[in-house]
């Protein structure tokens, strides 16, 4: 029996689990997919937004965005994930667009954002020499930045686990029942979890989880965003995150210098009926390349090393819905967490905690709290001297497995031992396979390490859980059809 069960281990659920794990509570965090962050969060653009896109007077999402933004420096220190406050530029290329720029700037000021700076052409080019010199004007939000969203989720969950939170992956809730002051959530495979409180942070499927628990009826719509990742050596990599002037549906197509030294362009914003549809399309690639080429110099489609798509969970009114259920007891809804959900997530966790307290959950701080995730020993961030010392403790620190991103065997072994036993799990945890060869050289090596460390036979390893088997079995299991050959 748990005090709280959190449905969904994306940024919202993980942040909630992390905040609650510091109290004397028994917490379960459940995730539908094979690993944490594998739903909406995995494909997030990774922007820590600047607090000017939405009005804090009118929307909950802006209020939480502004609070959340301010929390990231401390979070990075405590949790260890790639994050940089490299600033955001919103850029206009026509006088007409400048009126929106001024409106956004004013909105930022009204929201209480500090240090926003209106910029003319020269100032913008000084801040970001790679901008197209035809830029007319814009503003600078130095408090914005970029983060690796999946690394942030891993870090939150790891810290929560250190403080006693229990994680259950591949747990898809198919029913929820409240009886004798206790919730029982049942998974598709029959597992059951009992808890006094439920937090519904199920992302795209928050509507379904709410429905099967007899709570509010609402509809989550999926809005797809395609992203294209450029080679590390791309000449287009800017210093700042570059935003165009936004539209109603989205903040536009951005140029994103990621916190790990690569460049990403995207995302698009298109509604899709299918909540599992993460396909990319040729038209969109062209569209993205054309749009970003207007903003910045050096974009080349030849530099694209991979593409992917993510889905934003969107409610009709475009705002977050975070509240106690009015229809069932002890049930917190955390729904419609679209952009700027990542930025807002630390504040979302706090907000949910306060709602639970208000609903009767007693919060007593633990006597011993593990506050920090010590920084990981990542080959790419260590000096040769430090690597030499690490090698003395464990020789696998100087055995490089992923050449492109410089990931050591030690890092991969650590990921597997922490429970990331899918190829994507290891990839997102360590970056192995994210570089220019896209796993061409290292996938087989990584699979062997996963198999050795986890005991899962090679032929049963998956890319991302479920039926995503990586291999077709051992050589020799198939019958060789020689009829065509002999027919010749």
């Amino acid at each position, binding site marked *: 029996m748990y005090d709280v069960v959190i449905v969904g281990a994306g940024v919202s659920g993980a942040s909630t689990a992390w905040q609650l794990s510091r109290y004397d509570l028994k917490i379960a965090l459940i995730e539908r997919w094979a690993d944490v962050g594998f739903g909406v969060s995995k494909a997030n653009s990774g922007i820590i937004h600047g607090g000017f896109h939405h009005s804090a007077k009118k929307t909950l999402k802006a209020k939480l965005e502004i609070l959340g933004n301010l929390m990231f420096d401390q979070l990075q220190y405590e949790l260890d994930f790639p994050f940089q406050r490299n600033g955001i530029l919103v850029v206009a290329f026509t006088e007409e667009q400048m009126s929106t720029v001024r409106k956004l700037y004013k909105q930022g000021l009204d929201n209480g954002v500090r240090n926003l700076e209106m910029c003319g052409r020269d100032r913008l080019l000084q801040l970001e020499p790679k901008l197209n010199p035809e830029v007319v004007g814009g503003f600078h939000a130095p408090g914005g930045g970029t983060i690796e969203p999946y690394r942030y989720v891993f870090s939150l969950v790891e810290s929560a686990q250190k403080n006693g939170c229990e994680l259950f992956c591949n747990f898809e809730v198919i029913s929820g029942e409240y009886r004798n002051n206790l919730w029982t959530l049942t998974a598709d495979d029959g597992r059951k979890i009992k808890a006094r409180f439920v937090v519904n942070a199920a992302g795209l499927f928050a509507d379904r989880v709410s429905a099967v628990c007899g709570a509010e009826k609402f509809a989550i719509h999926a809005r797809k965003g395609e992203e294209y990742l450029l080679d590390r050596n791309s000449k287009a990599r800017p210093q700042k995150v570059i935003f165009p002037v936004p539209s109603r549906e989205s903040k536009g197509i951005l140029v994103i210098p990621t916190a790990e030294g690569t460049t990403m362009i995207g995302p698009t914003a298109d509604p899709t009926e299918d909540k599992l549809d993460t396909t990319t399309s040729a038209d969109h690639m062209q569209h993205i390349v054309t749009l970003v080429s207007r903003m910045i110099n050096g974009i080349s489609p030849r530099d694209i090393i991979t593409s992917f798509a993510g889905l934003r969970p969107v409610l009709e009114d475009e705002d977050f819905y975070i509240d106690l259920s009015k229809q069932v007891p002890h049930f917190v809804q955390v729904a419609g967490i679209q952009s700027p959900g990542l930025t807002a997530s630390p504040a979302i966790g706090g907000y949910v905690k306060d709602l639970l307290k208000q609903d009767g959950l007693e919060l007593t701080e633990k006597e011993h709290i593990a506050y920090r995730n010590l920084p990981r020993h990542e080959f790419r961030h260590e000096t040769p001297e430090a690597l030499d010392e690490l090698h003395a403790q464990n020789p696998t620190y100087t055995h490089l497995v992923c050449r492109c991103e410089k990931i050591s065997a030690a890092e991969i072994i650590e990921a597997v031992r922490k429970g990331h036993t899918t190829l994507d799990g290891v990839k997102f945890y360590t970056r192995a396979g994210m570089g220019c060869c896209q796993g061409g050289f290292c996938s087989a090596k990584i699979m062997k390490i996963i198999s050795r460390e986890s005991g899962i036979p090679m032929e049963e390893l998956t*890319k991302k859980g479920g039926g995503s088997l990586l291999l077709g079995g051992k050589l020799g299991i198939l019958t060789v059809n020689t009829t065509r050959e002999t027919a010749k």
Partner: protein
Amino acid sequence: MIHEFNYDVAVIGAGAAGLAAAAEIAKSPHRVVLIDREEQLGGILRQCIHNGFGLRYFKEELTGPEYADRVAALTKSPNINCKTNTTVSDLKRLPDGSFELLAYSADDGVSLIRVRAIFLGMGCRERNRGNLAIPGSRPAGVFTAGAAQKLLNIEGMLPGKSAVIVGSGDIGLIMARRLCWSGVEVKAVVEIMPYPSGLTRNVVQCLDDFGIPLYLEHAMVNIAGRERVQYVDIAPLENGIAQLDRQFRIECDTVLFSVGLIPENELSIQLNVELNPATGGAVVDANLQTSVPGVFAGGNVLHVHDLVDFVSEESSEAGKSIVRYLDGKLHSDNNCVTVESNLKYVIPNCFNTGEKCTFSFRPLIVSDVALLEAELNNKVIWKRKFTYVKPAEMLKIELPAEILKTPGKLVFRLKEEA
């Protein structure tokens, strides 16, 4: 403590190129460190268990591992120290013109290696689905042909049960046959060009003999499947544009990409070696020396070859140049060599006045008969007819010393003959 080593030459990569260069240098008294990130010497040859190697270089037909063993045997010399399972991550040129390398391995930890010359023999990597930005979902079952080859031939694992191969490059063709022999159904090979991009003998022996359909001028326009690949959509091309109204579907659980190779010059970039956009490799002079004195290149890191025999020949030549460099006897002239019509590139990019020189070309045309012409200072000095010219097959010629006696600008042209 970081181990420090001094050698005369570092050979980076112990595939066909690095082994040939190291073997050549070891004939001199100079000391070589041969570094490779894999466990065994031989590079990609290890996974190429088919035959067809060595006809030119060893005058007999060998499999990839046999060829690797032959060249590796030549490197058994007291002058060569092999460091396998070792990755070079940083390269630096010092003000005195020597070099410092940082190499990492589980056995030795961190090694700081000082050398006077470097041979770049890193080979190439495969272009992948991401490079082509093929639309669709991202299920398991999508491989580059070489990665699938390694899984099958080294690890003994099948990539899947039914496959479609994108690109008719040699690795893709070889893999089509290999998959058939393993019981995997190969449903199609899809090629965007109007002609196959692999060697003719491979089209015959790997596709025709097995009745595998080759769709020329077709593109893969969609990969579908949530967990594992379920099907792909293929469309014919007209003037390079996919005709989506005529697309058709092939059910399969595996997609292999054999769509070209990219020379692996990430380390060369650290040394500010000048690269040639046409090859993706270094610009080199007649001695196969790059724009950075003391840095030489050969094999697929320089330009993508279709025969390993050519890799060995070229890299042996580079090895000889390195010995001359170390002995202070290397002579380089700056006589510019370029290509015009119907040739993608030429290697090397300079010739030495009055010395014979070997040139490699990549044609841009398919032609039954074509005339290769060399023009020095606007005067045609040499011609040769070639039959069955195509982009898949590299042209290699040697110009004798007599006709290169005058310094100046050398231009090559390829002309289609009616």
